[in-house]
């Protein structure tokens, strides 16, 4: 029996959350090793387990993968979440890259100065509403299909759903001008593997809190 993938990261969302989403959506069970101390990180680094001395790191198929996008692409390729040909794959890739740019703002948010955090929520909302959501709304309206690309679930759908839900936690009415995205959010959330991931008790992590921020500083600050 193949060993489950093992994720190395602090116990919180950060850059690993997208990986958790994709594994869960693909129906892949995984284990996690949570980084809580500087010593644990040091041990991984000294043991040459981290290619560029950084996490996320995912042990999978006899490899130790690093670099978030490389990990996501590997899993997507392996589990048929990357389209049926190069053109679909590239379209999915463009959508994912754009969404990851938006998600990046959420990832960095808890580490901003408290005074800057409020302003940044407004910035995120603006970017989402003006730059990103209209694109996806138009795509869905244009082809009338359930998924963004090629009428099947792809990495683009998973990362977009992750980002929409994370934004909704901060800005509850963020989809108010996007009826197709609203419908889409419900439909993708109801896919059995994703529905399971959205239920309590799953490996989905809660929004970053002070404990998470403190842990990150403890582990990573020199």
């Amino acid at each position, binding site marked *: 029996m193949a060993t489950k993938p093992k994720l190395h990261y602090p116990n919180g969302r950060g850059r690993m959350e997208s990986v958790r989403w994709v594994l869960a959506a693909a129906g892949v069970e995984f284990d996690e090793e949570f980084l809580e101390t500087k010593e644990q990180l040091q041990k991984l680094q000294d043991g040459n387990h981290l290619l560029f001395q950084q996490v996320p790191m995912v042990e999978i198929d006899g490899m130790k993968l690093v670099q978030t*996008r490389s990990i996501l692409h590997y899993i997507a*390729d392996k589990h048929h979440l990357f389209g049926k040909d190069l053109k679909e794959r590239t379209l999915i890739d463009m959508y994912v890259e754009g969404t990851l740019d938006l998600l990046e703002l959420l990832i960095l948010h808890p580490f901003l100065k408290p005074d800057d955090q409020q302003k940044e929520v407004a910035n995120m909302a603006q970017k989402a509403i003006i730059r990103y959501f209209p694109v996806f709304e138009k795509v869905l309206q244009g082809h009338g299909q359930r998924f963004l690309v090629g009428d099947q679930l792809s990495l683009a759908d998973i990362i977009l759903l992750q980002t929409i839900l994370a934004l909704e936690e901060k800005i509850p009415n963020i989809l108010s001008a996007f009826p197709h995205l609203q419908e889409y959010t419900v439909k993708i959330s109801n896919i059995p593997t994703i529905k399971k991931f959205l239920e309590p008790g799953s490996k989905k992590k809660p929004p970053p809190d002070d404990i998470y921020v403190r842990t990150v500083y403890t582990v990573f600050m020199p």
Partner: protein
Amino acid sequence: MAAKPKLWYFCGRGRMESIRWLLAAAGVEFEEEFLETREQHEKLQKDGRLLFGQVPLVEIDGMELTQTRAILSYLATKYNLHGKDLKETVRINMYAEGTLDLMMMVAVAAFKPPEEKEESLALVVKKAKTQHFPVFEKILKDHGEDFLVGNKFSWADIQLLEAILMVEELDASVLSDFPLLKEFKTRISNIPTIKKFLQPGSQRKPPPDSHYVEIVRNVLQL
């Protein structure tokens, strides 16, 4: 006869340089349209040619590709520089992502105030010497082959050479502790397509100067 790919960007490195390197290394002739005014950029946006309103934009094979990494991935695959299977591809991706991170730090530093810029660039040199170059030196040492992955020229080799040259512009002695990387640099630089790209008169762009920064700021209203 297929139209040449067309690149839309500023007349400078930024996020387009790695794309120029890939095309050049693959022996693909390409055209460039340089953004110099706000109006040009707004026209691209208004004409709906920029998926998320941003450059780089590469017109190729009937598509309008944006998002740097998606473009690079497409080109690497199209020109057989992305490995022979999933395991090789993920390694190439990890190596390329690592070097891209390093080079993006240099690109971003150009836009910082002088003191911060110096600090950022010093950090790039430090990271290259401690985090990135030792890794690639070891990879080359361990397998003793000419190229990073699968004994075959790939996107990872192109990115690494680009990164080496970029960091050498900041600190000419940066390879002093890495004999295999020195050999690698010579070897890859002598590949005919790359040798041509490294000669004066090619489409390779110079390091960012204040004039470049001014144009970008003006066009993007930063």
